[in-house]
């Protein structure tokens, strides 16, 4: 392991510049700094440890190859995050093509059960301790379809606007609005411990 003190104190921009000149040590430092964040994003979308490790590794390799395309419009971490998100979406699309759609997936655009669900009036997370809340949110995200999960992740965690999500997910803004709305409604139900079966 390289523990060059000058590298650990250098900014991301300096490390990117060094990496562009072919300095693998600088790139290793960038990987070390952002690897958890990139892996976490891949895991949040794929919900599978092995796939998330493979895709985050692929994102790092791609980011090395495309370093010259990084012009600093966003932070380096955000830039690599976008790469891993695109890789995850590609993987999810491939996976979707390989299997038959389920009724639940057909319900995605039109809301399914959530269409008829009354609003959850009590804040279901009000009295939860932070760690507990995180666990509950994670468990609820696990139960969402990947389309719903992805749109929530991009909007709530990546702070993307509707049009950016539409571009990333290769769909219309209307589809983004629909998916986001029903994803939120499903989350509300899940956080309130309502099971969709109970709503039928």
């Amino acid at each position: 392991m390289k523990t060059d003190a000058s590298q650990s104190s250098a900014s991301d921009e300096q490390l990117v510049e060094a990496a562009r000149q072919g300095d693998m040590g600088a790139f290793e430092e960038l990987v070390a700094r952002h690897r958890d964040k990139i892996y976490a994003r891949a895991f949040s979308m794929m919900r599978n440890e092995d796939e998330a490790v493979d895709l985050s590794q692929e994102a790092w390799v791609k980011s090395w190859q495309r370093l010259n395309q990084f012009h600093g419009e966003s932070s380096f971490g955000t830039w690599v995050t976008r790469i891993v998100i695109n890789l995850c979406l590609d993987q999810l699309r491939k996976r979707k093509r390989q299997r038959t759609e389920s009724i639940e997936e057909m319900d995605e655009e039109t809301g399914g059960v959530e269409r008829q669900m009354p609003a959850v009036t009590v804040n279901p997370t009000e009295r939860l301790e932070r760690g507990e809340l995180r666990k509950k949110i994670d468990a609820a995200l696990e139960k969402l379809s990947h389309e719903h999960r992805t749109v929530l992740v991009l909007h709530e965690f990546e702070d993307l606007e509707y049009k950016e999500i539409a571009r990333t997910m290769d769909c219309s803004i209307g589809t983004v609005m629909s998916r986001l709305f029903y994803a939120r409604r499903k989350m509300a139900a899940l956080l309130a411990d309502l099971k969709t079966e109970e709503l039928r």
Partner: protein
Amino acid sequence: MKSIRVKCLFWAIVLLISMIAGGVARAADSLPVQMQLIWATNEPKSPDPKHKPVEADVAKLLENTPYRWKYYYEVHRRVEDVPGDRSLEKIVMSKHCALDIKYLGNHSGLERVQVKLYGDDKLVSMHKETLPLLLAGNAQNGTAWFVLIRKAPPGAKADEAKTN
């Protein structure tokens, strides 16, 4: 070199003429089409003893769709030569269901049709699609209807006579 070019040109012209001739012939083609009205239910018995379970290949096709039921019964079957230049008379599938179908030709190896679906004599929908095409919707008491339209398999006309 010059003679090779002349030969190439000759064969290209031959190809061109034969394709034009084929195209003209094809424009007047019709397509044998089989239409099946199917009733899907989770009940092991059809209310009408005349309804027979669908054939294995049809059942497999239906089971590969997102909406699944345990049992599929054929309500009615029709096989028609569907012309390309006009619609047939309305094809009555049941007291409630009729189809109006027109052949739109072959596109990249896929047969295209225009289908108008009528329910209780009212137009429900119009589709321009490739075959096989499955139209479907909910029926009462948690059952469903399907209309499977596909290129008629060999011997379909004879089977139709037996079935109906």
